[in-house]
């Protein structure tokens, strides 16, 4: 089908090539949704690219995130998709990706983007290059340092466990009259930051996904208990239902929260909105019963991919390759305040533009955590059905928190749901 279309396109192109020189210009459509200024920054870099390649024009369609998540897959299936897009369901859309390896310098990509390339691949055997990780995120904890100072409680140290943090946060909250000691975004992705230190593996020995290993169950039990005793801000998880996302940004920004487990994408917002109201910090990834090797956040983020259905695969690859070059990539990360996924850039360090000292410090703190990310985290992030697992975790765990299901029932339901999802996705 695609082959046919290509031939037709080539024939059409050949017919008109001689007649109209203008039609030689290639237009690439780029679908993008942004939280901050990622898309706008990318466009400025693409403009530089256009200057070097006068025959290629990039047109960005800035869309709501919902379009990327829900409509892009439909478009791609129906053959009406764009040439390239910034996506977050990295593994799930694999079947539509354009393999860039014939067009780009493979070793450069392999050396610099190493682990993140796997997230776009179909499996371990797949050696293709499909996407450029433009935004590497990592989950982690923020604390309200000022509250600790006021309560005269020392920040737990580098190897502090979740339990230590809970204890300290409760103490601070009590001493300062703060409403909520801890909070965690309502997301299965964030929950992995708790589950991995508790020893969750997410995959059995054969590599099949599971949501009931002992580590995961222990973390769930702890989380439910913390929600019950008021350690966790119940509003975030228990105030919602289904798979909907909720965060505690408001509470943290307003100084009502001591310890907030979220992720690196919050930094810019915190810098803007907290301003001088209090001091805040990123703390090292909390540990857990599983021991020192498991003190890890969850990696994540988004990347730009090209699609098979494009009529201009070469140009798409050229464009992505241009963006992947150290200078351009560094500029993108510097302007959009993101953690680089490119090894060269990371080693050189990024000079964040317009970031307050606090924000820059926080970004660097997160960057420092990247090398210690647990393999479980990478595997989980790279699994193509991980979104199903995130959703199931959130839905069922909330039911356990509000008491609709017992924890055992919730865990059983998670396994059943996962089985159904995996079956449907095959």
């Amino acid at each position, binding site marked *: 089908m695609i082959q046919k279309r290509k031939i037709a396109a080539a024939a059409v192109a050949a017919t008109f090539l001689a007649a109209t020189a203008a039609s030689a210009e290639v237009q690439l459509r780029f679908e993008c949704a942004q939280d901050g200024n990622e898309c706008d920054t990318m466009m400025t870099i693409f403009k530089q690219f256009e200057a070097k390649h006068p025959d290629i024009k990039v047109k960005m369609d800035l869309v709501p995130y919902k379009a990327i998540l829900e409509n892009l897959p439909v478009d791609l299936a129906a053959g009406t998709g764009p040439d390239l897009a910034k996506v977050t369901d990295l593994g*799930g859309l694999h079947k539509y990706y354009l393999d860039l390896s014939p067009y780009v310098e493979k070793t450069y990509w392999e050396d610099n983007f190493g682990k993140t390339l796997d997230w776009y691949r179909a499996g371990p055997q797949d050696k293709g290059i499909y996407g450029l990780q433009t935004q590497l995120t990592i989950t982690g904890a923020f604390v309200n340092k000022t509250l600790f100072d006021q309560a005269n409680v020392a920040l737990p140290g580098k190897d502090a466990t979740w339990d230590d943090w809970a204890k300290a946060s409760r103490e601070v909250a009590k001493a300062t009259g703060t409403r909520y000691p801890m909070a965690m975004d309502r997301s299965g992705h964030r929950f992995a930051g708790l589950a991995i230190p508790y020893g969750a593996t997410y995959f059995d020995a054969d590599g099949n996904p599971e949501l009931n290993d002992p580590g995961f169950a222990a973390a769930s039990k702890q989380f439910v208990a913390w929600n019950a005793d008021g350690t966790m801000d119940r509003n975030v998880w228990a105030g919602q239902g289904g798979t909907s996302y909720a965060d505690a940004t408001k509470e943290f920004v307003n100084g009502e929260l001591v310890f907030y487990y979220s992720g690196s994408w919050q930094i810019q917002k915190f810098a803007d909105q907290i301003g001088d109201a209090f001091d805040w910090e990123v703390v090292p990834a909390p540990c857990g019963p599983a021991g020192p090797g498991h003190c890890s956040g969850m990696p994540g983020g988004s990347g730009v991919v090209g699609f098979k259905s494009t009529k201009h695969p070469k140009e798409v690859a050229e464009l992505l390759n241009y963006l992947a070059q150290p200078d351009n990539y560094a500029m993108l990360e510097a302007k959009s305040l993101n953690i680089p996924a490119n090894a060269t850039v990371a080693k050189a360090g990024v000079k964040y533009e317009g970031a307050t000292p606090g924000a820059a410090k926080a970004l660097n703190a997160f960057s420092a955590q990247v090398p210690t990310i647990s393999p479980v985290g990478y595997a989980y992030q790279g699994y193509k059905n991980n979104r*199903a697992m*995130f959703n199931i975790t959130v839905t069922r765990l909330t039911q356990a928190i509000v008491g609709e299901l017992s924890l055992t*029932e919730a865990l059983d339901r998670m396994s059943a749901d996962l089985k159904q999802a995996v079956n449907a996705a095959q």
Partner: protein
Amino acid sequence: MLSLITPLMQIIEWPMRALQRILGPRKLAWVFLLPNLFLFGFFTFLPVILNFFYATTGSDHILLEDRPYVGMRNFDELMNCTSYLDPNSCQIDLFWRAVHNTLWFIVLQVGFMVFFSMTTALILNRKIRARGFFRAVFFFPVLLSPVVVALVWKWILQDQGALNAVLDHFGLQTVNWMLSPTWAFAWSVFISVWFHMGFYTLILLAGLQSIPRDVYEAAAMDAASPWRVFRKITLPLLMPTMVVVLVLSLIKGVQTFDEVYAFTGGGPGSATTLVIQFIYQNGFAGAPRLFGLASAASILVAIVLIALTAVQLWITRRNANG
């Protein structure tokens, strides 16, 4: 406006007159129906038919031709319960929780909706000052997007929201509304009535215009009691419009989703998860998309709705006659 419409209508008059001569006035009805049926057939009816096919297929593929046929499996899974009264005994427990919630939801929502929109329409139909302003006021919420509606009501109802501030100010007990399943449900009903009431008020307001004024004058001469006037004159004469409101409020009540979803996300837990949220989360936001399951669920909902509407129409018809 009129100067625009008249020439257009006059142009169409020629072919229509010719058709009337050929077909006769009775068959001309089909000519009047045709444009609508064409659009309806392709863009409303055909998708519904395709939906039936989706319901009998599995996998997470989007194109129908890629999807394997699975027969009634999706329906079987949905209906696989030890007891339909206990969602926990069902294979797809969330569907049945949503069904239970939705049933309660429509009982409350349709009742309040019809009552308040009727009252409002009657009042707005009177000779009152600043009628246009008041009409706009009641219609305003309809214009907002569900996200924004949810946002403002969250400001009001969250733990440290405006309502609790007011309660606190008067020394009353504050409640964390969003964390209590009962309150969250009650407020969801309230918000959805608040959001959509203007829609039905408007329809009823238009319907009230079809009641000739002299009928009321005659009733006033007869010194009929107000309740009797309403019961014996307004209501029967308003019946065709009432049918619209009853049928639409039931259908749209069952299909309530956006504002409640944006407000509670279906929570706490699944206390406010409605059927459409289940369908949406499985068919659209789901990962993977269980499109077959969502389609099957939508068909089950439609069957129940058709039954409910039939009962409703039967009752209104009986009442209208009696």
